[in-house]
């Protein structure tokens, strides 16, 4: 194995591992998806029981979704840092 071939091999493996790592980082969105699903179901049930409270429920739902979504966004930022930085 010449040094050039070894170099190409190492670069390829490193690139592949980068993509693998980014993919694994995105597993963290699982929890956010579950959380947003639960939030949406809860909010819709609340609105169905009390349609007058729809406005307040929506505001609180969006706030809570922002919290749940933040976790997914962190995973996304980590994945993008792996992919695009360095």
């Amino acid at each position, binding site marked *: 194995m010449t040094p050039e071939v070894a170099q190409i091999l190492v670069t390829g493996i490193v690139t592949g591992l980068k993509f693998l790592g980014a993919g694994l980082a995105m597993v963290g969105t699982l929890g956010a998806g579950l959380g947003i699903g639960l939030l949406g179901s809860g909010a819709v049930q609340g609105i169905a029981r009390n349609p007058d409270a729809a406005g307040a429920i929506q505001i609180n739902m969006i706030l809570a979704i922002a919290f749940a979504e*933040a976790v997914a966004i962190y995973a996304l930022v980590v994945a993008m840092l792996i992919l*695009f930085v360095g």
Partner: protein
Amino acid sequence: MDTAQPTKRRFGFHRWLIVALIVVSVFAVRAYAPVRPHVQVAPEAVLGPFNVPLLGEMYLTNTMISLVIVDLILLVLALAVRRAVKTGAPVLTGIAGLIETVIEALYNLAESTAGKSARRIFPWMATLILVVLVANWSKLLPGVESIGWLHEAHGGVEGYPARELFRVGKASVSAIELGGGEPAGHSDSTLYTVSPWVRGLPTDLNFTLALALISVVMTQVIGLTTAGPGYLGKFFNFGRFARMWTRKDLGPFEAIFPFLDIFVGILELIAEFAKIISFSFRLFGNLFAGAVLMIIVGTLVPVFLPSGVLLFELFVGLIQALVFGMLTLVFMSMATQLHGGGHGQEQGGAH
């Protein structure tokens, strides 16, 4: 896409305009294939380096230009409203009327959450919402992230051959294109990449971090000025710890709770710092992901789908601006109501 067309020529003119633009895009894409630009997290330097005393080397980055544009838009809007108010018309029309509606809706939101202290909190919240909203939507303008200096690609950056379009004086205006075309205008076959002049403002972490710092620091200031020095008792809760030593009969719980108080205070302190990270990364992550999504969809499926993605980005920009402002509002109103029992929510803020 929705170009301003004040005259209503016939039924559904805008609709047909959009359909026509989509059809044109099909042919445009065949004639001129979209190029996937280089994705970079740090903002690109447009001019520089400048040697600034005390600070060292500084670059004029493209997000700074974007910030100036966003500020100019906001200033023009503010001046338009000022002029409309000065005319003394009973009902504001046009842009001023739109701004009035928005401000009124935001003030109602602030009042329903913060109650009495809405007047103090509202300017911060509304300013943050407007700045973030304009910054988010200015990212979607055509030309942003696609017009800029042509650089030679090096160091792992994917490059494309450039073709000269026309000349303005001495300056050459060129476009990069997918391989296959012969690089005219530039004699050798060097590969080029574009570093844009204007880039979406929230895709720079410095901007979102600055907004987060403003939000969190002003929350502390409002808490301190409203509740007085007692506000600090939330973080440094030594009251029961000090009283513990004067007690004669010390039960097991009286000995544990003072330490719990101190621990909870430390947690609250950490939560404040977590808020900074949470604020800045939420906005940055959402908008940077949006930019990458537009790039990827635009190069993979350049017809039909980018229109939908643009609509989605419009929605995301609005929601993120609202979320930023509303979280600021909620945190500030929690800081003004010291013993409001908002501990559960406070912990939620640590995410």
